[in-house]
């Protein structure tokens, strides 16, 4: 029962991601895609800064002690948000989400296969390859 409730929360969180994309597209059309992107990261930074100040664990000193390359993942965030902001109004939310899903799974498969960025190497398996083919077919149908 608790598990089902937790899954509902996660499901709602996934719905929220689409709401976010659905809000971003029209906002970007009005105020500019870069400004819409700024809005996401600015508000997100403020919320997370608040959370971090009151979090039990003091993680910042530890964070900045990590090797530099490990701190660079975040530079890709704006690329992603600018892309969804500018693409969603033209493709619709559904097609955009399926295309993103495809890119995500395909890249994940390759990163795992070659063990990039210190990820444990895992050979391409039939499950995820099959999933990728099905998502490609869905993408062809949906748009």
């Amino acid at each position, binding site marked *: 029962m608790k*598990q089902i409730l*937790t*899954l509902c*929360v*996660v*499901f709602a*969180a*996934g719905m*929220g*991601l*689409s709401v*976010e*994309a*659905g*809000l971003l597209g*029209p*906002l970007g059309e*009005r*105020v500019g895609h*870069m*400004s*819409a*992107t*700024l809005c996401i*990261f600015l508000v*997100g*930074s403020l*919320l*997370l*800064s608040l*959370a971090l100040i009151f979090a039990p664990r003091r*993680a910042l000193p*530890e*964070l900045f002690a990590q090797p530099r390359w490990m*701190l660079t*993942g*975040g*530079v890709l*965030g704006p690329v*992603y*948000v600018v892309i969804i902001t*500018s*693409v*969603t*109004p033209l493709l619709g939310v*559904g*097609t955009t*989400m*399926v*295309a993103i899903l495809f*890119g*995500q799974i*395909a890249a994940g498969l390759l*990163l795992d296969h070659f063990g*990039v960025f210190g*990820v444990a190497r895992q050979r391409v*398996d039939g499950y*995820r390859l099959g*999933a990728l083919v*099905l998502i490609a077919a869905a993408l062809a149908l949906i748009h």
Partner: protein
Amino acid sequence: MLTSLLILLALLGGVTLSVQSSVNGRLGGTVGVLATAWLTFVLGALISVLLVLFAQPPRDMTLLDAPRWQLTGAFFGVFYIVAMVFSVPRVGIAAATVAVITGQLAMSVLIDNFAWLGNDRIPLDPQRWGAIALLFASMALIYFGNRKRESAHAKG
């Protein structure tokens, strides 16, 4: 032509997500998800300020003129992060991934179908139902694939 280009761009967006989560995954393991998310958002904010100032043609309307509900996107993003931190240890990554993607896809076709939030209307036609069926099948594969890897991890 334009459409295929846009789809390619969206695919690329998915690729950046994956790369980001591999780099961040390592970081999250050592310093925690909250600090990792914080760094990601702060870096993103710094870069987007630069983009707004130097890479965006001026507009008549600014963020402060937009209706406030249109500015709430980040709340959903942060809710997602918190929800994942809370649930992955409880239900496992396999189930959590599938639940997120399912919620995401369900909501996206609803937004399109009802033209919510000021988006153009794209009706839920038989083709889209077909796509949904295919996506369900792919979710099943992802679930079982992840389950298998999780149990392999547990043993190893």
